[in-house]
């Protein structure tokens, strides 16, 4: 039984590792861009989030099966990490005595930079509010698109937004691409590094 567990874990690791090796350069660029946007609601930096995502997949905490698209799997894992971290912040925001962050930060360390002083917590809440304001302001010249951004933030589904705005799939995808491009241009290093 014990041996079978070890063998299974080895097979899972090799399967995940092969899939990770198969990622193309453009997939890696996609991952980096996704991480820079997913990290903002969490306490991870973009690099930490990427590192944790790879580790979850490699250590089998998230079991990868070879028939799954590895890029989609990684992005889903990344999202799940960011979301869990946001929830855990809500449940028990951590305060630490020493708010200083290590100067040489190693993104491969186990946890995100989770310790926050009360001042940092307030600042971080203010930061996300500022980011939201900046995001919406980006679309002041395109009220229709701004409405879509607001609807996405209000958790309306794709279908609901399409119906509300009278869009078909192509129209929705075109607007979404426009939103992404504008966000990327305004926040080239992701929201957290602004």
């Amino acid at each position, binding site marked *: 039984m014990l041996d079978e567990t070890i063998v299974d874990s080895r097979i899972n690791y090799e399967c995940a590792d092969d899939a990770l090796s198969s990622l193309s350069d453009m997939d890696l660029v996609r991952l980096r861009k996704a991480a820079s946007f997913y990290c903002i*609601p969490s306490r991870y930096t973009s690099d930490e989030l990427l590192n944790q995502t790879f580790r979850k997949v490699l250590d089998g905490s998230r079991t990868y099966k070879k028939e799954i698209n590895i890029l989609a799997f990684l992005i889903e894992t990344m999202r799940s990490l960011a979301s869990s971290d946001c929830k855990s912040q809500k449940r028990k925001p951590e305060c630490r005595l020493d708010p200083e962050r290590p100067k040489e930060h190693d993104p491969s360390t186990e946890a995100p930079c989770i310790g926050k002083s009360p001042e940092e917590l307030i600042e971080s809440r203010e930061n996300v509010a500022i980011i939201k304001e900046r995001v919406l302001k980006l679309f002041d010249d395109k009220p229709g698109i701004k409405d879509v951004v607001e609807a996405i933030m209000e958790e309306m589904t794709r279908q609901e937004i399409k119906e509300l705005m009278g869009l078909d799939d192509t129209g929705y995808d075109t607007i979404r691409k426009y939103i992404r491009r504008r966000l990327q241009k305004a926040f080239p290093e992701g929201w957290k590094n602004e």
Partner: protein
Amino acid sequence: MNNIRKQLLKLADEVASDLMLASDEEIRSEAIEDGLDIEKEVSKVRGILEQSRFRKAQDDLKKEHIKTLVKGNVIDINEARSRIRRACEKNKDLLMAARFGEELLDEDVMDAYRQMVKHGIIQEDLNDDY
């Protein structure tokens, strides 16, 4: 979850979905348009991946080392935790030791396991009840 964080997460979902749909050519030309050094970006992500692999290998080595610490029997850390837990459940005097289950570091669990084997609380034979 902070409402604004949740809203930004939803927006990130849409960004990610669009990134998934974009073709390689689109991603490449957008990167060039944005003045991004593609090679540098790629190398950075590959570096992070290598770090993750290295950490995983380190963890595996550590676990392998821990496994061989119990003389005569190769025992997995999870099995050791589970045997300690079962021993504690059967022996009320070991109530305090029940804490060993999840909170201790692997090395400490193995240390506790060795002590319990030494004192006959847990039998060395892995086929034993605990």
